């Protein structure tokens, strides 16, 4: 008879809870780019009372939420090519300016998804390395080197239970030493010169269990 796994003593955060956790770290006045996929959810959790500038790589600052059905303008789309709106005070600009905002250090935060993040902040999020995949990079590499802070939002483990936080990435890199903080369904973890340091963890999860799941030592929150 196979062993029945012990019930977990903790409940992982769902995607919206991770997004809300990221949103809580974005201060008023920040210029922020939310990557396509999971990070887009962060936009739904930004506090209504704070003025935060969302940047879209295709040339928008002050990007607003999706328009009402029927009010779409297909010349006003986000990086994921979905229709959006412009907030009062927002602006449009061309692509070279838009990416100059990233590389020039004007963008405070970008939030990206990832396949893997290494303990030294290497990011792998653009290619699985599968030989038959059509390669596509978009703005991922520019954002990774450009934003002042790169936050990664991802599930802690792969579907087969391996940690996405790794000693060294095995997937092709997007950027070297660029990630500052990782938000997962289990914890918020800073990448420090001394290694991984948990900022918070889901209730009921011990630092020993988090380290075991990660396969790397994680320092307990202060």
């Amino acid at each position: 008879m196979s062993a029945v796994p012990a019930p977990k003593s903790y409940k992982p955060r769902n995607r919206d809870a991770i997004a809300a956790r990221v949103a809580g770290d974005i201060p008023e006045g920040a210029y922020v780019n939310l990557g396509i996929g999971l990070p887009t959810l962060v936009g739904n959790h930004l506090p209504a009372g704070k003025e935060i500038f969302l940047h879209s790589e295709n040339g928008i600052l002050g990007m607003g939420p999706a328009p009402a059905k029927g009010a779409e303008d297909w010349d006003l789309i986000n990086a994921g090519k979905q229709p959006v709106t412009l907030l009062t005070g927002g602006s449009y600009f061309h692509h070279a300016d838009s990416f100059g905002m990233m590389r020039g250090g004007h963008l405070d935060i970008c939030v990206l998804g990832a396949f893997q993040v290494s303990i030294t902040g290497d990011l792998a999020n653009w290619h699985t390395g599968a030989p038959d995949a059509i390669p596509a990079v978009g703005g991922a590499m520019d954002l990774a080197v450009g934003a002042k802070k790169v936050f990664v939002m991802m599930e802690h483990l792969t579907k087969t239970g391996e940690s996405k936080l790794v000693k060294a990435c095995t997937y092709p890199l997007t950027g070297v030493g660029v990630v500052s903080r990782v938000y997962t369904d289990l914890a918020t973890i800073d990448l420090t010169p001394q290694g991984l340091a948990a900022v918070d963890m889901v209730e009921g999860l011990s630092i020993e269990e988090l380290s075991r799941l990660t396969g790397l030592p994680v320092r307990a929150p202060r």
Partner: protein
Amino acid sequence: MINKIVNSIAESLADVKDGSTILIGGFGGAGMPNELIDGLIAQGAKELTVVNNNAGNGEVGLAALLREGRVRKLICSFPRQADAHHFESLYRAGKVELELVPQGNLAERMRAAGAGIGAFFCPTAYGTDLAKGKETREINGKHYVLEYPIHGDVALIKAEKGDRWGNLVYHKAARNFGPVIAAAAKCAVAQVYEIVELGNLDPENIVTPGIFVQRVVKVAREQILKEAA
């Protein structure tokens, strides 16, 4: 009198040669100059090198140009999309070459071409597969990759309004690559929905000054009813 307005799309593209490098504006469907691309298909130029952020969507614009087998090489940042099936089948059959470029490098390499820059050091892609084989340099403790400009023979631009001197304004985020590719090409052709008298565009708000634009052609405004991306 200087008049950059041409009467038809056919006239605006009559001298495009086989083997040309064509810079095409647009990010997904936004800013994609579909009418000019249809004109290019009709004109017949082949063996083209095309520069665009994506690899075409559905059956229109760049997707149609690919379908017609006119493109030898695509320089692009994000060719993988659910409805980029013409590119995908050509690529898998080895019938089109792909140079994958990070999106900001794509923009900056064309900006450099338009601004007369010989090459530039850029931090993007350092240490990744997309910088393999490229010259690198450490400057003030930071690593950079040497990138060269992308010059175009022809730029195809979708703008909102233009005048006979070639001054252009755009519509919302359809601007994207337009101002960049206008400067990077020897001959920039802009399709516009409205041709206005000189002086009608507010000089404080002209986005692409006419010095970068050689031809302007009016097209009918189409009601876009469904998702173009």
